[in-house]
């Protein structure tokens, strides 16, 4: 009996010991997991997602040899159609890009029209502190000077962006930026059709898949907004086509050119079949027409 009891005691002790060991292993794993999470927490108190600005995309199109064509812009007469926050925000982004395009090409009369349309939508969105009469005056006085106009527009964008974030309407800022992205991409596809040496423009269009990932990350951070959810759904077709882009991998290194400027070098190449590229062009046109016609 005593031996049996001792046996049970030994077994019980062994079980307890095994349980203790298992607990210790579990605890150690939990500590490691918490440490990683804590590190992740410490690594970023805040994350910003930044998208191409209207002027940036237009700038790249110009460098790629794109020729201006006013027919591609969203007509300013459409501005009265935009009565919801979503359509106003999206098309504020669209018109901002169109304004950048017109101004960089010294189209003063057109720039003035798009300035008026942009102002109207900014008013509707409650951004008039940002686009004050003084700011409008500055823009009108500098309508012929594309550099000054670009600088003023970037100030407006910066102020709008921060104003909306401070008012708790960061999702509206995200929708505006998405509108600028869509219009920049749409203009790129139209200009690619009309530019003889369009390889660079096509490359730019394919490269926009990278910023689309950022857009989706940004929009997904506002998953409680119905406007944003609808926009994510609208972007789904374009996203699906971009997922078909094939990219070769390559290591990234930084070198200096002969002037001592830093160049980030990565020899990776991204390709999309002609068929899928054409599908992408159609999908982008459909998306842009949907937002500009609503």
């Amino acid at each position, binding site marked *: 009996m005593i031996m049996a009891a001792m046996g049970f005691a030994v077994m019980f002790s062994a079980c307890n010991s095994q349980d203790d060991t298992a*607990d210790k292993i579990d*605890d150690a794993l939990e*500590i490691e997991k*918490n440490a990683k*999470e804590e590190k992740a*927490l*410490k*690594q*970023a*108190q*805040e*994350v*910003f*997602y*930044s*998208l*191409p*600005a*209207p*002027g*940036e995309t237009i*700038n*790249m199109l*110009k*460098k790629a040899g794109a020729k201006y064509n006013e027919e591609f812009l969203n007509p300013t007469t459409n501005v009265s159609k935009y009565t919801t926050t979503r359509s106003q925000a999206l098309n504020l982004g669209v018109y901002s890009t169109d304004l950048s395009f017109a101004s*960089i090409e010294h189209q003063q009369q057109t720039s003035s029209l798009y300035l008026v349309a942009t102002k109207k939508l900014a008013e509707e969105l409650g951004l008039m502190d940002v686009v004050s009469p003084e700011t409008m005056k500055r823009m009108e006085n500098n309508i012929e000077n594309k550099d000054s106009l*670009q*600088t003023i*527009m*970037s100030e407006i*964008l*910066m*102020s709008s*962006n*921060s104003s909306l*974030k*401070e008012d708790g309407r960061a999702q509206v800022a995200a929708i505006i*930026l998405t509108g600028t992205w869509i219009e920049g991409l749409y203009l790129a596809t139209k200009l690619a059709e009309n530019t003889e040496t369009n390889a*660079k423009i096509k*490359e*730019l269009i394919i*490269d926009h898949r*990278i*910023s689309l*990932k*950022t857009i989706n*990350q940004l929009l997904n*951070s506002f998953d409680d907004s119905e406007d944003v959810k609808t926009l994510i759904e609208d972007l789904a077709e374009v996203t699906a086509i971009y997922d078909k882009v094939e990219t070769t991998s*390559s290591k*990234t290194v*930084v070198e200096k050119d002969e002037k001592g*400027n*830093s*160049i*980030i*070098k*990565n*020899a*990776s*190449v991204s390709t999309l079949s002609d068929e899928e590229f054409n599908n992408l062009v159609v999908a982008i046109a459909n998306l842009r027409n949907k937002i500009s016609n609503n």
Partner: protein
Amino acid sequence: MKKYIKIITFLSVVLFAPLTSNAQCKTFSKKVCKLELLPYVHDGIYNATVLSEGETVELYKTFYSGQEYRLVVCGDDTQLPPVEFQVLDADKNVLYDNKDDDFEKKWDFTLESSQMLIISIQVQTTDELSDEIKEGCVSVLVGFMNAEDTFDQY
């Protein structure tokens, strides 16, 4: 089994009321930081927040080939220790660290291929003994060179 409080990773602004307001941060970005961008054109995107010693922030942005960029990361020198920033690729390889450059506030670069880069910013901690944790505005601005201002074309 011991129970541990799970640390939930969140992405949000620090919850404590900052001594520096967001409005002051915006003014700092516009009046002080933006000057460092010249002659590059600011992309118009506002990325600024109040950080304390040791805190970090990240910026994810796509940079395009053939475009000349300037990245400016500045902290309020009157309030904060030096601000370190690193530029990383999508695989988190460090491409540039301003710590190796005496905490330079800006970095100019171009890219052979378009890619997303991560700018990771951390406020250094001071060695001073103090009950007060220093905090201040940190701003991240990106500028690009206008087409007509560039002479090197890819």
